């Protein structure tokens, strides 16, 4: 099967233009190396903050990648027409999984091969948690071998799914055979179930289990909602960038598409709030100490303001803003709200990850909120590699799925 999308002048790369992919790759690698140096220095000095910066930014890009993967699969199983011109951008986005899988390796090295295995996830240090009755009750799940197998299974599955969806989509660009659509629908159907389960398990393993004393059945659904919000905001920005100054998507990505993206962003804003509120409210109302401590820790110090920021900024402001029709059809207004959502999505991840690394372990004192220089290097480092991966995929395929059965519907889409 040939998947070379060599057809025509529709190929995105234009000769004579600066190849940004290499700039992003080198920039990303430099920042990532700086970040890893920070993790190493922190590790030798017993300071976990640089490693947590890397974990937060890893979770940030992972959530966006998973959100894009789910959006691609949802597009296929719903037989969606309008979003076909956007789908190719999602397919570029989901090319990041192999690289994210590699970026996770330092965490594994610290947890499995270093002298301080509990540096990231406390429960890895068996001597430290030996007398912890909760660990003893949970060790059937919190096992090192199971954790490692799960890592390979999660990333293996996501890489496989992303590869299949991308390959079939490009293959259709060459021969225009509808069988590729059917194959993509098939892989999306089981892929959604697989991704839902692995996304849940990954959020428990990598985020929730930092504070392994705590538990909530809603957690996987929260990570799903957060991922979708992040991915929608990023894909809207990517599409808008590509029509900026008559860029390559001009005349294909139109107001109707932007409006519908805005509507889905509104829907997921409400869904995220619904999930987050339900989790908070049910724990608050039951008032059981083994659950409430997680929120109590997040009411201390500056975390209180982050909590309020999530309620009023990530939900209320965004909700009211996206209710207005005009805010969803004006490019500049959508750029603003997308950046806003991405910023608060990151804060949501800070909120979920950082306090769990307790400053005083036995006293349940949360790690204080701060944006460290290591967060910025990790953000730029992983971001640079993700951007490189995106542009590399973009350069090697057509700007839109030219022979998708629904491409005409999408090009004619007016919205409303």
């Amino acid at each position, binding site marked *: 099967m040939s998947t070379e999308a060599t*057809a*025509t*002048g*529709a190929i995105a790369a234009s000769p004579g233009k600066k190849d940004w992919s290499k700039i992003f790759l080198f920039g990303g690698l430099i920042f990532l190396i700086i970040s890893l140096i920070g993790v190493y220095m922190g590790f030798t000095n017993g300071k976990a903050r640089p490693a947590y910066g890397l974990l937060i930014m890893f979770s940030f890009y992972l959530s966006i990648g998973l959100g894009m993967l789910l959006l691609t699969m949802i597009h296929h*199983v719903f037989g969606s027409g309008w979003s076909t011109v956007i789908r190719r951008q999602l397919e570029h986005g989901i090319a990041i999984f192999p690289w994210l899988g590699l970026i996770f390796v330092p965490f594994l090295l610290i947890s499995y091969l270093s002298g301080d295995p509990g540096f990231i996830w406390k429960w890895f240090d068996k001597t430290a948690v030996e007398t912890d009755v*909760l660990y003893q*009750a*949970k060790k*059937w799940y919190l096992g090192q071998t199971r954790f490692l197998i799960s890592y390979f299974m999660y990333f293996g599955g996501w890489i496989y799914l992303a590869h299949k969806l991308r390959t079939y989509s490009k293959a259709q660009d060459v021969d*225009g*055979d*509808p069988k*590729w*659509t059917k194959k993509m629908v098939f892989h999306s*159907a089981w892929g959604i*179930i697989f991704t*839902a*389960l692995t996304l*849940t398990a990954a959020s428990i393993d990598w985020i929730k289990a930092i504070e392994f004393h705590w*538990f*909530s*059945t*809603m957690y996987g*659904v929260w990570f799903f909602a957060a991922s979708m919000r992040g991915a929608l905001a990023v894909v809207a920005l990517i599409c*808008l960038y590509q*029509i*900026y*100054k*008559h860029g*390559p998507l*001009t*005349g*294909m*990505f*139109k*107001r*109707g598409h932007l409006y519908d993206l805005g509507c889905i962003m509104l829907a997921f804003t409400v869904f995220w709030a*619904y999930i987050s509120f*339900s*989790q908070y*409210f*049910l724990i608050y*109302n*039951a008032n*059981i100490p*083994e659950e409430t401590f997680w929120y109590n820790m997040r009411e201390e110090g500056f975390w209180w303001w982050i909590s309020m920021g999530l309620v009023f900024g990530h939900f209320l402001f965004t909700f009211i803003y996206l209710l207005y029709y005009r805010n969803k*059809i004006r*490019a*500049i207004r959508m750029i603003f709200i997308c950046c806003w959502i991405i910023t608060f999505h990151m804060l949501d991840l800070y909120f979920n990850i950082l306090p769990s690394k307790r400053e005083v372990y036995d006293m349940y004192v949360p790690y204080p909120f701060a944006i460290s220089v290591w967060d910025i290097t990790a953000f730029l480092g992983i971001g640079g590699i993700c951007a490189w991966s995106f542009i590399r995929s973009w350069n090697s395929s057509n*700007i*839109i799925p*030219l*022979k*998708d*059965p*629904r*491409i*005409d519907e999408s*090009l004619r889409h*007016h919205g409303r």
Partner: protein
Amino acid sequence: MVFSDQFPLDSKTPAPPEVMADVKPADLPRPKLVENDRSFGWITNKVCGIVEEKTPTWWWVAFACATSLASFTVIGLTYLVSTGVGVWGLANPINWGWAIVNFVFWIGIGHAGTLISAILCLLKQPWRTTINRAAEAMTIFAVACAGIFPVFHVGRVWFAWWLFPLPNANAIWPNFRSPLLWDVFAVSTYATVSVLFWYVGLIPDLASVRDRAKSKFRKIFYGIFAMGWRGSTRNWNNYEMAYLLLAGLSTPLVLSVHTIVSFDFAVSLIPGWHTTIFPPYFVAGAIFSGFGMVLTLMLPLRAIYGLHDLITQHHIDCMCKITLATGTIVGYAYTMEFFIAAYGANPFEIFAFINRAFGIYSWAYITMFTCNVVTPQLFWFKCIRERPHVVWVISIFVNVGMWFERFVITVTSLAREFLPSSWGYYSPTWVDVFTFFGTFGVFSTLFLLFVRFLPLIAVAEVKAVTPQADPHHYEEGEHH
């Protein structure tokens, strides 16, 4: 503004010709929503004909059976009111038995109608048009059945108005911190908006029946309810706006009702009830059971009235897939509850779930899991979805499974609560059985009356999704 101009979003902005030259969509036509290129006239005749024809014999037989069955509820309730709530099987520690199980069961069924009408309307899913009317009717009747149980559970039903915060001589005021009170507001609001939504959608079709009526009585009867509809542009303009607003209003209501129903359980400390995933899990379960009931009702109607061109295989496919998806979400919730019970390491929680699956009520748990998670997986197969009788049987499994889900949640946790000395086993009495099974009669009676007197398919909406309603249809040369 200058910066905004750098983003050409206008629909008239041309795409690069070198890209457009390569756009050659693969041939994969969308399924037709109305088969055999039926005309507007055919659709009107077919649907209005059901209301206008002589009452068929099967209808009389079904109506007689339904009303007879409904009388069971009347008998059960009469005995209850004249004797007291003690005639139900409720006994310490299981003070919530079939009453709340039946309430949640019927409320869940009442979700599909408004979901199809409101959420699928906002999602611009045109396939909803042939099933929305009957599903909305079903919603209202299911909510009516649901309301019976909490109202009679209060004991002295004539004091049910105390549920509302109305000043009274005894200075009795409802407890606003109880989700049961939130239910009162959520369900009554939902019922009101659902009725309004259903009625607004009916107006153009009632006018069609009025205009076709041959007898004066029918003309007056349908004329009153058609509210002077003339089909003018202004009429349609107002109608579309009202419909869209009601869809927007109904959407959060659909989600809120079952969320609050889930709060009835989840705000407590009872093991097996206090779990944070309950709100979305209950909503998914409600949609699942609602679609189960839509399939149960629509498939026989399709066969009896020969509606195959309107309720096509594509519609059945879509409903089966939603049932499969929501059934799988429910399965995810069951798994997550079990997993977190074990992971949470709370011994009471662990016991509650082991007891559910392997304890004295394991038969109920197995029934629930099989019907709700395993059976719908058959919908993965096209050959199953293409056999309406098999789909119908599976839809019955869904209905049964969802009743058992509520039974498992309610009864298993209470029967084995914190104090082993008060453990018990719940058994319904004949009054419980009469009241519950009678509600199927109430529901069927109301639905049969609907089928007989109102257009069971939204004629105007179906016409709007036919190819000939597309302004570009004739440009493409697809003349009839």
